[in-house]
């Protein structure tokens, strides 16, 4: 027997756990479903009710949906009631089921019982879908005429829904409104008013039609107001406030566009406002609605004032709800009625101190809307005090709003800056960097205030040094820029001595953790070195010592900056110009948003410029020319200033100074071009003297705010350069090979600065032509001529080409700053003939609008194709790796590089055979190998097919091996040997003893040479490591010819002390044995361990020292064999090698010194096990930054997967290293066993591999063979797979 609803609810509520409740419900659900299935009509209502309860408790009860429909169809009222209830709970209008109910609802709508009709109307009003609305509209219309108000009001609201769903039905109901509005029943009228509101909003014509109701509505409202008391509708003293509210609202809507109806109703509404004197919510609700309507209507100002005043009364009340709505409304109307709202400013400001955050927030919004020129000072003062008082969450918002408001208003600058400083003082941590920069911007703008402001800031910091970072930033900027002004008395501030300033900055510098703040302070320090006339030497010394601290900072940026500052301090000739005061910063509006670091000063720009040459030696030229440019320009500018009073002075030598900066860069894609152009321009701009800045601004929008674009630009530049180098080389080479030749060469920026001091009265001097660009055979010469007008220059660009191919599709584009006008004449052609056999010209005429004020700058872009052939989409790659034949494993590092294979026939080679393919590689590859007869060099050729930029596929072409040290191949040196190329990949070496599948008639011709080329740098080259001439190896300079040279600066010695603790090696062995042999002996115990220990012997130990960058060894510093007998002693090693490197590297936090202890262990009887292990060593990574002590992580690992963590501690001192082993030190340790028992003393053989071909036309042949090759590759892959499977199987078997 199923439970009753009450029992069900009770049992669910009594359930102690959720699962218990769930169980009860699922049991009951099952019963209900059974009952439904048996069509038990009697218990259906009860069951549906239970299902509803289950649904409301959050469980699924959708099975009852259909039952609801059945219930609706039943004649009995209880069934209908439950059915409709279920309908409204279980279904929504999107449910398809609902359509089935339409007919039943229709039947009910014409039912006799008003309650049944009521139920049906409710369901329709709540759930009616579009289809239902359309179908049932006539019935609803009929119901609106029902005699009972109960049905009428519901029908009216149904009509509301129907109109919402199907707007075209609106006409059907319009005619009924009049009658309904005059209904006696208040509820019906109220519902009708809602319908009217909807109709009026939907249709303008109906609005006009309904305007005639205004009078009637007013009468109704009046009677409501005047009725002394009607118990029926009274709500706390007001007669039917709900109806009143709706009448007022409708009046407002009707009056919105109509003068007439506004006039009729506005007086009455005024009366409502004045008449209702209720302190209760009800009265206020009516008044509030009246205010809203008045403000919406076309009412007179007097009445509007009444409305707004009543809002301010709301504000004065202590009721939060009223304040909230009043503020909300005021915010809405402040734009249309600013004056009226302004009157209540005081109260609004008071609301800022409300308890309620909703109200505070609204008040704040409103206050900001109210701020204008007149009241700004007062209001912002209020806000500042509020800023002090308020909670943290609000501060950031207020601060930024104050800043925004300040910006908007044109106010007294002094006050403006002071306010900004106040904001920074109070809420520094909440404002964005934008505000800092705005402040700085303002300070820079008003030169007359700078002294005062700087004093102000200085004193602020002096009083309390623990200010917000933002304030410190602004202050240190100001001090740096205008430090000289601090020495004077300004207004009430006394003069300050340079030492005091430095004291403060030093304190701030050492107490801040913020990187940006440090930048600012460092900047200020360096700037101060040129600010003071007195005590200059002391200042410089002091600054130097301060900056030196940061020379080894962990942050690369600060490190870089401080070392550059130090460098700058040495250069007295340029320092003064570089560190001069910056001109007012002009920020364009649109950039403001983005520019985050706009406040970083010009020094930074300079530094950045200095970074560039470090990135790429090519840029050095650029930079030096830039420097010249700097100096020259500065000179000019200075002269400019000097000569201003006497404009007709004789021209000096530098008057016709024209400087160029050329930055050619080659890129294969045009898309990149633009980017690169920008970046390079940035690089250049940075180097421009300050006075040129704004001029540059106007040309290049992207660089308007140099500070901003710069870091980005530099970053991009770096990135592009690092990527570009390879590509570039390749490109150049490709040009040589003429394989591919789409080469778009472009991009130099060219700055032409003409001095404007040129005397106008003098005879026009002939301006010498200049070579604007010269690279890759292309030369651009610019000839200058004065035009008719004084500020007009006619330039003829002359292009010539010394290449062997003509340049086609030549495009020459020029850009000038905004103040200049450019007319680009037609070019004489778009092809430049080769071998300088002809020229192409293009005239341009430039008018300098700022003649005499600004130098002219041209920016040029060149685009052309060499040898109009489409780009080759094949690249060849060579992989060189090392293979140990006896151990069957690859080792060392694989060298991979794109190679260029020459197509040209070399006829002098006699060996060539007609049908064979040979490969010639144009690059010398160097390697340093450990001499071992089992060592094999594996060469692999691969072809990369570029489908597009992203999609690339690599196919192996073939591979080959060289055995450099095996007996039979001793004669390979210094002669051309011919080595066959094999099919497949070298992976087959892992399985097969020797490669078998030869590619027919395909040979590599090698020229192997023992060379002295890398002798000098040998100790820096890691063993088993390949490199080519184009590889960049740190610390090694590629000197002329084929020799590598060590950086000559390397020559210092280094001392290392090693302590070996007594038991270290014993423990090491223990650990080793444990880790290795545990795998082989199931019952591994002390006995076995001892047995093993007896037969194991340490043969040799040596210490190798390398510089390591955390990922790979960068250079080897030396190797030392340690005496096995000396165990507990201190071992002192003097490393003669290039320890200097370390000193250099010491500045780079990424480099560490790697000490590796290598043990050669004789395993005696257990040699079979050794096969699994290669070499053992323990490594110590020493950080070389100048910390006194460094701690290291430490672990021992073994190549085959056993891992033994140790915790030990190591201490490293600056000059000597003491390595107490295994006690309490931290060492990183890796143990591997070596197969080679007695390693020879690393005999060194050096040779470059030269691969040359005897037969040309390789590419052609290879292309022909490509298809065949692909087939072979596929076939081979399958073979390998098979072999692998077999091998796996075998392994499995052996286990």
């Amino acid at each position, binding site marked *: 027997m199923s439970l009753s609803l009450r029992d069900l609810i009770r049992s669910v509520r009594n359930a102690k756990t959720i699962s218990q409740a769930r169980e009860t419900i699922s049991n009951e659900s099952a019963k209900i479903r059974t009952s439904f299935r048996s069509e038990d009509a009697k218990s259906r209502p009860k069951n549906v009710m239970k299902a509803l309860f289950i649904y409301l408790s959050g469980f699924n009860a959708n099975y009852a949906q259909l039952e609801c429909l059945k219930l609706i169809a039943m004649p009995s009222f209880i069934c209908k*009631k439950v059915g409709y209830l279920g309908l409204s709970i279980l279904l929504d209008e999107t449910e398809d089921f609902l359509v089935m109910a339409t007919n039943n609802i229709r039947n009910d709508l014409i039912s006799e019982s008003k309650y049944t009709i009521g139920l049906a109307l409710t369901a329709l009003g709540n759930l009616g879908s579009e289809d239902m609305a359309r179908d049932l509209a006539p019935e609803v219309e009929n119901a609106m005429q029902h005699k009972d108000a109960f049905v009428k009001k519901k029908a009216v609201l*149904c009509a509301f829904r129907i109109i919402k769903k199907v707007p075209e039905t609106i006409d059907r109901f319009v005619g009924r409104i009049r009658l309904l509005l005059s209904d006696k029943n208040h509820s019906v009228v109220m519902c009708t008013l809602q319908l009217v509101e909807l109709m009026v909003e939907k249709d303008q014509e109906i609005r006009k039609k309904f305007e005639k109701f205004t009078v009637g509505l007013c009468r109704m409202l009046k009677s409501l107001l005047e009725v002394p008391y009607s118990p029926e509708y009274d709500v706390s003293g007001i007669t039917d406030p709900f109806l009143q509210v709706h009448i007022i609202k409708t009046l407002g809507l009707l009056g919105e566009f109509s003068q007439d109806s506004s006039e009729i109703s506005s007086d009455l509404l005024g009366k409502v406002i004045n008449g209702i004197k209720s302190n209760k919510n009800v009265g206020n609700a009516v008044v509030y609605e009246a205010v809203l309507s008045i403000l919406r209507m076309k009412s007179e100002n007097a009445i509007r004032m009444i409305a707004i005043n009543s809002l301010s009364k709301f504000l004065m009340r202590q009721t939060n709800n009223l304040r909230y709505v009043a503020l909300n409304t005021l915010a809405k109307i402040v734009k249309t009625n600013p004056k009226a709202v302004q009157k209540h400013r005081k109260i609004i400001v008071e609301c800022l101190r409300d308890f309620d955050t909703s109200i505070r927030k609204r008040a704040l919004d409103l206050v900001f809307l109210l701020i204008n020129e007149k009241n700004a000072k007062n209001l912002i003062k209020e806000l500042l005090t509020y800023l002090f008082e308020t909670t943290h969450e609000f501060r950031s918002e207020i601060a930024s709003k104050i800043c925004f408001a300040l910006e908007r208003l044109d106010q007294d600058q002094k006050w403006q800056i002071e306010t900004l400083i106040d904001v920074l003082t109070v809420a520094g941590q909440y404002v964005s960097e934008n505000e800092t920069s705005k402040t700085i911007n303002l300070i820079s703008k008003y030169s007359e205030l700078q002294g005062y402001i700087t004093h102000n800031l200085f004193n602020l910091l002096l009083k309390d040094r623990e200010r917000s970072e933002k304030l410190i930033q602004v202050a240190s900027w100001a001090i740096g820029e205008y430090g000289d002004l601090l020495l004077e008395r300004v207004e009430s501030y006394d003069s300050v001595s340079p030492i005091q300033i430095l004291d403060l900055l030093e304190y701030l510098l050492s107490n801040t953790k913020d990187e940006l703040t440090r930048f600012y302070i460092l900047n200020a320090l360096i700037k101060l070195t040129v600010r003071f006339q007195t005590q200059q030497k002391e200042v410089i010394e002091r600054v130097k010592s301060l900056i030196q601290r940061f020379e080894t900072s962990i942050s690369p940026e600060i490190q870089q900056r401080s070392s550059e500052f130090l460098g700058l301090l040495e250069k007295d000739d340029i320092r003064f110009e570089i560190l001069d005061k910056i001109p007012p910063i002009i920020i364009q509006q649109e950039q403001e948003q983005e520019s985050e670091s706009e406040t970083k000063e010009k020094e930074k720009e300079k530094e950045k410029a200095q970074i560039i040459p470090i990135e790429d030696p090519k840029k050095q030229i650029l930079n030096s020319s830039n420097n010249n440019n700097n100096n020259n320009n500065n000179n000019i500018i200075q002269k400019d200033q000097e000569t201003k009073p006497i404009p007709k002075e004789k021209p000096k030598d530098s008057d016709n100074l024209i400087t160029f900066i050329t930055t050619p860069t080659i890129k294969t894609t045009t898309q990149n071009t633009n980017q690169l152009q920008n970046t390079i321009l940035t690089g250049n701009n940075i180097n421009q003297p300050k006075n040129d800045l704004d001029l540059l601004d106007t040309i290049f929008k992207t660089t308007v705010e140099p500070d901003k674009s710069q870091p980005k630009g530099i970053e991009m530049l770096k990135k592009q350069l690092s990527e570009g180098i390879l590509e570039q080389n390749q490109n150049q080479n490709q040009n040589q090979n003429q394989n591919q030749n789409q080469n778009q060469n472009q991009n130099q920026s060219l700055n032409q600065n003409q001095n404007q001091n040129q005397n106008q009265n003098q005879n026009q001097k002939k301006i010498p032509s200049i070579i604007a660009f010269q690279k890759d055979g292309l030369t651009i010469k610019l000839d200058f001529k004065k035009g008719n007008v004084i500020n007009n220059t006619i330039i003829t660009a002359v292009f010539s080409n010394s290449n062997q191919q003509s340049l086609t599709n030549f495009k020459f584009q020029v850009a000038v700053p905004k103040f200049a006008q450019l007319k680009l004449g037609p070019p004489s052609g778009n092809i430049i003939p080769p071998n300088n056999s002809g020229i192409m010209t293009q005239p341009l005429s430039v008018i300098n609008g700022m003649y005499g004020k600004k130098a002219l700058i041209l920016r040029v872009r060149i685009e052309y194709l060499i040898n109009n052939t489409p780009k080759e989409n094949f690249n060849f790659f060579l992989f060189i790796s090392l293979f140990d034949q006896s151990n069957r494993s690859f080792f060392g590092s694989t060298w991979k590089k794109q190679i260029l294979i020459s197509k040209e026939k070399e006829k002098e080679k006699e060996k060539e055979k007609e049908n064979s393919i040979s490969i010639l590689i144009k690059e010398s590859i160097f390697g340093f190998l450990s001499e071992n007869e089992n060592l094999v060099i594996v060469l692999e050729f691969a072809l990369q097919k570029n489908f597009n930029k992203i999609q690339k596929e690599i196919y192996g072409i073939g591979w080959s091996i060289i055995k450099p040290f095996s007996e039979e191949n001793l004669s390979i040196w210094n002669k051309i040997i011919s080595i066959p190329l094999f099919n497949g990949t070298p992976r087959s070496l892992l399985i097969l003893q020797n490669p078998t599948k030869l590619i027919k008639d395909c040979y590599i011709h090698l020229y192997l040479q023992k060379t002295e080329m890398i002798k000098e740098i040998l100790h820096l080259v890691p063993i088993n490591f390949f490199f080519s001439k184009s590889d960049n190896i740190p610390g090694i300079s590629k000197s002329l010819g084929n020799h590598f040279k060590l950086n000559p600066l390397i020559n210092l010695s280094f001392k290392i002390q090693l302590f070996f603790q007594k038991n270290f090696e014993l423990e090491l062995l223990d650990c080793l044995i444990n880790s290795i042999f545990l795998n082989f002996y199931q019952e591994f115990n002390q006995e076995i361990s001892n047995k093993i220990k007896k037969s194991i012997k340490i043969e040799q130990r040596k210490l190798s020292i390398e510089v390591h960058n955390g990922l790979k060894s960068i250079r080897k510093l030396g190797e030392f064999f340690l005496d096995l007998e000396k165990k507990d002693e201190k071992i002192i090693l003097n490393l003669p090698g290039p320890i200097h490197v370390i000193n250099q590297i010491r500045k780079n936090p990424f480099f560490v010194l790697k000490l590796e202890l290598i043990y050669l262990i004789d395993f005696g009887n257990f040699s079979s096990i050794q096969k699994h292990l290669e070499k053992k060593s323990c490594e110590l990574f020493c950080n070389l930054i100048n910390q006194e002590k460094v701690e290291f992580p430490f672990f021992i690992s073994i190549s085959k997967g056993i891992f033994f963590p140790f915790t030990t501690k190591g201490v490293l001192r600056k000059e000597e290293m003491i390595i107490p082993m295994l006690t309490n030190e931290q060492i990183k340790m890796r143990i591997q066993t070596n197969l080679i028992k007695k390693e020879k003393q690393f005999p060194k053989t050096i040779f470059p591999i030269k691969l040359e071909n005897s037969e040309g036309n390789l590419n052609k042949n290879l292309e022909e063979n490509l298809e065949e090759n692909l087939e072979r590759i596929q076939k081979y892959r399958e073979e390998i797979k098979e072999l692998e499977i077999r091998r796996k199987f075998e392994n499995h078997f052996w286990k």
Partner: protein
Amino acid sequence: MIKAVIVVNNHGKPRFIKFYDEIPEEKRIKLVKEVFQKITQRGDVLCNFLDGTHVSTEIADWSSDIKFVYRHFATLYFIFVIDSSESELGTLDLIQVFVEALDQAFENICELDIIFHPDRVLYILDQMIMGGLVFETDIKQIVFISEECDRLADEAKIKGQGRDKDPSFRK
């Protein structure tokens, strides 16, 4: 328009929920939870309105200007969700009417009444609000109709007991 009526007890357990828009179940739950949290954070002294912008639950049909108007009675929070066309102060009155109607219908309403008679609560609400619009604010009328309906239902029940089977839906 009234968008929803929510009754939650002091512990955040929803006691009665009626949405006038089609809103997926999970969103309803999320919304109720969040609104409850936001409202309980506010003291009783503060204003009875909560801006829709404070609530992160996004509901597609609802524009940003919705407000939550709430009142706290003993153990229950009555929350009405309204849009800009509805007066905030008026809604506060409406809550008052709703609660008074419930009070009269149940004779001193308590939380348990709502738990055990969700159908009656819904029916009373249906006599006040339909499709998000208020159509009746006369408490007497509301209570009278709901009682009348109950009476009719009871009569039908007694009558229905005499009848064995329902003629419709027979297979």
